[in-house]
C-alpha cells in the first residue's frame, strides 16, 4: 500500500486539473462531486497506508524522479511514508473530505464554486506534498503551495479589495517565514550537503560533520521562523485573523485544521535537530507561550465569530509550540490532531451560523440560535467543551499533556499556560453563550430566515463532533493508562526530548486544578454574558478589542516606513539621484558644448590668437615641464 502513496496527492491533483480546466463550463454539482470524491479516494488510500504503517512501523521512501541535480546538490522528488506522515495524511484527507462535503452545500450559491473546489483540491495536494516529502525541499514546495492556495482562497471573493488585501497579507507574511525556512535549508545544505531527512538526521549524530552547537541553534531558529509564518506565531500571526476573509470552510480546513499546523509538523519532523538545539527549543516554547496568551487575550474581546475562532486558533497553535518547546513533540502532534477535530468543528459550526444569518458574522447581532439550529448548537457546544478542556473531551487530554509537560519543565510557564487555557475557556463560552443562548439580537428579517443547515453541512458537523469527543482517547495520560497509543505509534519517527516523568500525584493534582478552574471560568463566562452589554470598550478592553494595536504598530513601524522609503527612493535616489546623474552628464555635455562653441567667434583674429596661445602653451609645456 505504501508504494501507492503517490496516489494520495495524485487524486486531488487530478481533481484540481479537472475542476481547474473546466471551471467555467462544468456544472457546480459536478465540480463539488469531483472535488469531494478525489479527496475521498485519497482518504481511502491514506487509511490503507496508515494501517500498514501501524502494523509494520516501517519507514518507506518512495522515489518518484530526480528533481534537482547539480554537482553535489542532489534533491530527488521522493515521498517518505512513516508514522508521522501517515497520521497527517489521515487528518488532512479525512477532515479535508468532510470539509469538501460541507462545502458542496455551503458554496452552492456561489458562482465560482467549481473554481473553489479546484483551489481546495490544489490545497489538499500541496498539503499532502508538504507532509509526504522525503526532504525539506519537497516540504518547502508543499509549504509554499499551501501558502498559495491560502492566498487564492482568502482572496476568493476577489472583487472585495479588503479580502484581496488580506490574501496578500497572508502570502507576504508567509513569505517572510519562508525566507527563514529557506535560509535554514541552505544552512543544512551547506553543512550537511543534503536535505533528505534520513541523511540529515543520520549525519546529525555523525561526528564527521563537526559543526558548532551554535549552528544547530541557528538552523533550528531559521526553520522555526518558517514555522512562525505558516503557523501564525508572534510576530507573524496577524495574517491569520485577517485570513477569515475567505469562505468559512476554507478557514476550517486551511486556517485551523491543516495548513497552520504545518509548522508543528515541520518541527516535529526535525525533532532530532531540535533536540540538539536547546536554545532554539526554548525560543520555540517561549514564543508559543507568548502567542497563546496574547491571542487568547485578544479573543476575549472580539465580536466577529470567525475572528474569535481565528485568535483561538492562534492561541492553540501557541500551545502546540509550547509543547514543541518543551520537547514533547508527540504531545504537540496529539494536540494538532484533537485541535483539527474540534476547531474544524467550531469553524464549520460558525459557518453554519453565518449561513443561517445570511452572512452576518457579528455576535452582537446573534443570540438564542439554539432554538433554531439544534444540531449546530449541540455540536458547537461539544467543540467548546473540547477546546476548553473539560475532562472526557479530546481537548482535555491533549491540552493536559501539554500542561503537564510544561509543569515538568518550568512551573512558571505552567501557570502562564494555565492562564491562557482559562482564557480559552472563557472566550469560547462567551462566544457560545452570546451566539446560541439568550435572545436574538439581529434584525427581524434575519430572524425570519433562521434555519438549520442542510444535511451536507450537518453530517460533517456530527462526524467531527464525534471525533472531538473520542479523539483524545488515543493518548490517555499515564495516570489512566500506561499505554499511550499515539506516543508509541510515533516513537519510531519522533523522539521526545527530556521527558520528565511526573509523579502520579502531581499529575492528578494538575488535572484536577485545570479542570476545576476551567469549570469555574465557564460559570464566570455564563455570568458575565448572561446579560450582554455592548457598550463601547474602554481601557484594557479597548486595547484588546483592537488586538493590542499590533496591526497598527506593524503599519507604523514597518509597512508605512517601507512605503515611504520606497517613495523616497523612487523620487530622490532613482529619479533625481542616479537618473539625474546620468541625465546630468548629458546636460553637462550640452552645456559644455554651448560654452565651447562660443570659442568659435567667427573672427579670424581671434582664431589666430587661440592658435598662438596654444602654441605658446605647448612650448612652455615642452621646455619647462617635460624636460
Amino acid at each position, binding site marked *: 500500500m505504501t508504494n501507492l502513496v503517490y496516489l494520495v496527492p495524485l487524486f486531488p491533483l487530478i481533481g484540481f486539473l479537472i475542476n481547474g480546466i473546466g471551471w467555467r463550463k462544468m456544472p457546480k454539482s459536478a465540480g463539488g462531486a469531483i472535488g469531494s470524491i478525489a479527496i475521498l479516494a485519497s482518504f481511502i488510500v491514506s487509511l490503507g497506508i496508515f494501517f500498514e504503517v501501524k502494523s509494520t512501523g516501517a519507514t518507506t521512501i518512495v522515489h518518484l524522479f530526480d528533481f*534537482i541535480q*547539480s554537482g*553535489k*546538490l542532489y534533491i530527488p522528488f521522493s515521498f517518505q511514508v512513516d508514522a508521522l506522515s501517515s497520521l497527517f495524511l489521515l487528518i488532512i484527507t479525512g477532515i479535508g473530505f468532510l470539509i469538501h462535503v460541507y462545502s458542496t452545500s455551503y458554496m452552492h450559491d456561489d458562482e465560482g464554486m467549481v473554481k473553489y473546489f479546484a483551489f481546495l483540491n490544489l490545497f489538499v495536494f500541496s498539503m499532502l506534498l508538504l507532509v509526504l516529502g522525503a526532504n525539506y525541499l519537497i516540504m518547502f514546495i508543499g509549504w*509554499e503551495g499551501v501558502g498559495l492556495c491560502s492566498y487564492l482562497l482568502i482572496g476568493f471573493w476577489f*472583487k472585495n*479589495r479588503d479580502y*484581496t488585501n488580506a490574501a496578500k497579507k497572508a502570502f507576504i507574511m508567509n513569505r517572510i517565514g519562508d525566507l527563514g525556512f529557506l535560509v535554514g535549508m*541552505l544552512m543544512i545544505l551547506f553543512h550537511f550537503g543534503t536535505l533528505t531527512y534520513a541523511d540529515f538526521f543520520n549525519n546529525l549524530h555523525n561526528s564527521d560533520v563537526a559543526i558548532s552547537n551554535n549552528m544547530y541553534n541557528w538552523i533550528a531558529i531559521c526553520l522555526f521562523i518558517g514555522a512562525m509564518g505558516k503557523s501564525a506565531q508572534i510576530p507573524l500571526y496577524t495574517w491569520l485573523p485577517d485570513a477569515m476573509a475567505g469562505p468559512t470552510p476554507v478557514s476550517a480546513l486551511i486556517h485551523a485544521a491543516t495548513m497552520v499546523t504545518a509548522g508543528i509538523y515541520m518541527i516535529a519532523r526535525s525533532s532530532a535537530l531540535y533536540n540538539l538545539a536547546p536554545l532554539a527549543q526554548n525560543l520555540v516554547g517561549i514564543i508559543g507561550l507568548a502567542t497563546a496568551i496574547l491571542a487568547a487575550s485578544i479573543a476575549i474581546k472580539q465580536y466577529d465569530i470567525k475572528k474569535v475562532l481565528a485568535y483561538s486558533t492562534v492561541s492553540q497553535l501557541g500551545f502546540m509550540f509550547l509543547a514543541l518547546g518543551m520537547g514533547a513533540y508527540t504531545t504537540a502532534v496529539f494536540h494538532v490532531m484533537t485541535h483539527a477535530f474540534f476547531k474544524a468543528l467550531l469553524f464549520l459550526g460558525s459557518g453554519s451560523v453565518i449561513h443561517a444569518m445570511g452572512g452576518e458574522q457579528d455576535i452582537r447581532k446573534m443570540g438564542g440560535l439554539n432554538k433554531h439550529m439544534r444540531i449546530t448548537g449541540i455540536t458547537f457546544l461539544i467543540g467548546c467543551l473540547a477546546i476548553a478542556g473539560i475532562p472526557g473531551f479530546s481537548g482535555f487530554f491533549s491540552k493536559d499533556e501539554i500542561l503537564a509537560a510544561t509543569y515538568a519543565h518550568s512551573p512558571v510557564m505552567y501557570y502562564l499556560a494555565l492562564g491562557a487555557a482559562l482564557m480559552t475557556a472563557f472566550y469560547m463560552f462567551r462566544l457560545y453563550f452570546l451566539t446560541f443562548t439568550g435572545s436574538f439580537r439581529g434584525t427581524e428579517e434575519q430572524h425570519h430566515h433562521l434555519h438549520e443547515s442542510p444535511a451536507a453541512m450537518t453530517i460533517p458537523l456530527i462526524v467531527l463532533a464525534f471525533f472531538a469527543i473520542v479523539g483524545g482517547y488515543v493518548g490517555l495520560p499515564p495516570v489512566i493508562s500506561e499505554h499511550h497509543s499515539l506516543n508509541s505509534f510515533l516513537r519510531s519517527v519522533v523522539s521526545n526530548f527530556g521527558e520528565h516523568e511526573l509523579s502520579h500525584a502531581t499529575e492528578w493534582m494538575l488535572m484536577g486544578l485545570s479542570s476545576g478552574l476551567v469549570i469555574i471560568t465557564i460559570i464566570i463566562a455564563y455570568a458575565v454574558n448572561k446579560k450582554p452589554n455592548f457598550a463601547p470598550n474602554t481601557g484594557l478592553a479597548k486595547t484588546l478589542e483592537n488586538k493590542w494595536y499590533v496591526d497598527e504598530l506593524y503599519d507604523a513601524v514597518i509597512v508605512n516606513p517601507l*512605503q515611504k522609503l520606497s517613495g523616497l527612493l523612487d523620487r530622490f535616489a532613482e529619479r533625481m539621484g542616479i537618473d539625474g546623474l546620468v541625465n546630468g552628464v548629458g546636460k553637462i555635455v550640452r552645456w559644455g558644448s554651448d560654452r565651447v562653441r562660443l570659442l568659435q567667434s567667427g573672427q579670424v583674429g581671434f582664431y589666430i590668437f587661440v592658435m598662438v596661445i596654444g602654441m605658446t602653451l605647448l612650448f612652455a609645456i615642452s621646455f619647462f615641464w617635460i624636460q
Partner: protein
Amino acid sequence: MILTLLILVPLIAGIFSFIAKDGAKGLALISSLVTLGLAAYISMAANTASLSWTMQWIPRLGAQLSFQADGMSAMLCLLTAIIMPVIFISNWNKEVEKPGAFYGLMLLSQAGITGVFLAYDALLFYFFWELALIPVYFLCSRWGGEKRIPVTFKFFVYTFVGSLMMLSALIYLSLQNTGVSAYSWQNIVRAGASLPAVQQQFLFWLIFIAFAVKMPIFPFHTWQPDTYEQSPTPVTIILSALMVKMGMFGVIRWLMPVLPAGVAFWSNTIIILSVIGIIYASLIAIVQTDLKRLVAYSSIAHMGLMSAAAFAQTNVGLHGLMVQMFNHGINITGMWLIVSMVEQRWGTRDMGKLGGMAITAPKMAIALVIISLANVALPLTNGFIGEFMLFNGLFESASPYHITFMVVAGLGIILGAVYTLNMVQKTAYGNATAMTTGGDITANEYVGLAIVIGLILVLGIYPKPLLDMTAGFANMMIP
C-alpha cells in the same frame, strides 16, 4: 556549419523582410520556427559535444569567424529561438506600421543576439554585441511610446559607452597575443589570466561596465525602466528576455575566465552592488503604478540576484544561473505579453485605473497569476528551481559575508511578493471599472501564453532537461 545557419537564417530573412512588406510577418514566423528547430537540434547535440566552426576573417588582427556552442550557448540560443516565435505568434493579429522594417529589424536583432551567444572570438563577439543593439535602437525609436526618442537614445548611449569600454579592454587583451587567433576565446582567456593582478583589476571594470549596463546592475540601470516603458512590447521582450542575458552571458563567458584575479578582487563589491540592487529595485517597484515600469524594476531585482550568484563563483550557483537565465527569459516574456494585452485592450498601463481582469478576461487573469507566481519563484514553477540554486550558490560562496549576502538578497523574495501581488491585486482583482470593454485573449495570444505557461510548469516540475543541458558547462567553468 549549423551554428552559422542559426545566425544566417534570421539575418537573411531579416534582410528579405525589408522588401517583403506585408509578407514580412509570415517570413519572420517561418524563419523563427526554422531557427527554433535548429536551436533544438543544437541543444540536443551540445549535450554530448560542443559544436564549433571557424574561418579566417582578418588575419592582420588575428580575428576569426569562430562559433562554438557549449551548454550555455545552446541554452541561450534555444531561449532566443523560443522567444522569437512566441513574440511573432502573439503579435500576429496586431497591425504594425511598416511591417517589413519592423520584422526585419526584429530578425536582425535575433541574429545579433544569437551571434553574441555563439561567438568564440572577441572581435566577433563585439560585432554581434553591437549588431544586436542597433536594430533594437531603431525598433524602440520608431515604434515606441511618445517619449521614445530621448529615452531610447539614452539607452543607446548608455550601452554604447559600456561597450566602448569593453572594446578598449578587448584591444588590450588581444595585444597580449599574436598570430591568427589572437582574438579567440582561448587565447583571450590565456592572455587575461596571465596578466598581473593589478591590471586585471583595472580591466575588470572596463569589461564589467558593458555587461553591467546591459544586465543592468545597480547603479547602471536607469536606462532600463524608461526604455521598457517606451518600447513596443515585442521589443521590450527582446530587451528584457534576451538582451539582459547578453550581459549575464558576457560576464560568464568573457569576464570570469578572462580576468580571474580581477573577478576575485572585485567579486564582493559586485555582489554588494547586486544585492543593493535587488532591494533597491524591489522597493522602487513597490511604488510604481505603471505596469511596465513595475515589471522593469522587478527584472532589475532578478538580474541582481543572478549577478550576485554569478560572482559568488560556486558550481551550484553557476548552474542555477544557467537555469534561471532561461527561466527568467520565459517568465518575463509572459509578463510582457500580458502587459501588452492589457495595454492593447484597455488603453492604459496605470494600475490605478485597472482592475477586475478576472471578471472580464478570466483566462488572461489566470495566465497573469501563473506568470506572477513564477515571477515570485513559487515552487513548482520554473522560477523556483533557479532561484533556489542561486541562493544556494550565494550561500556557499567563499566570501566571509556569504550569509549576509544571501539573507539580504532573500529579502528580495519578500519584497518581490509584495509588488507582484500588488500588481495582481490591482489588475486582476477588484471590480471591473475601466476594464469593461475588450475581450479575453485571442487564439494567437492563447498559443503564445500557452507556450510560456507550459514551459513555466514543465520546467518547474521537471527541470532535469535544462539542468542536464547546462551541467557540463557549469562543471567545466567551476568544477
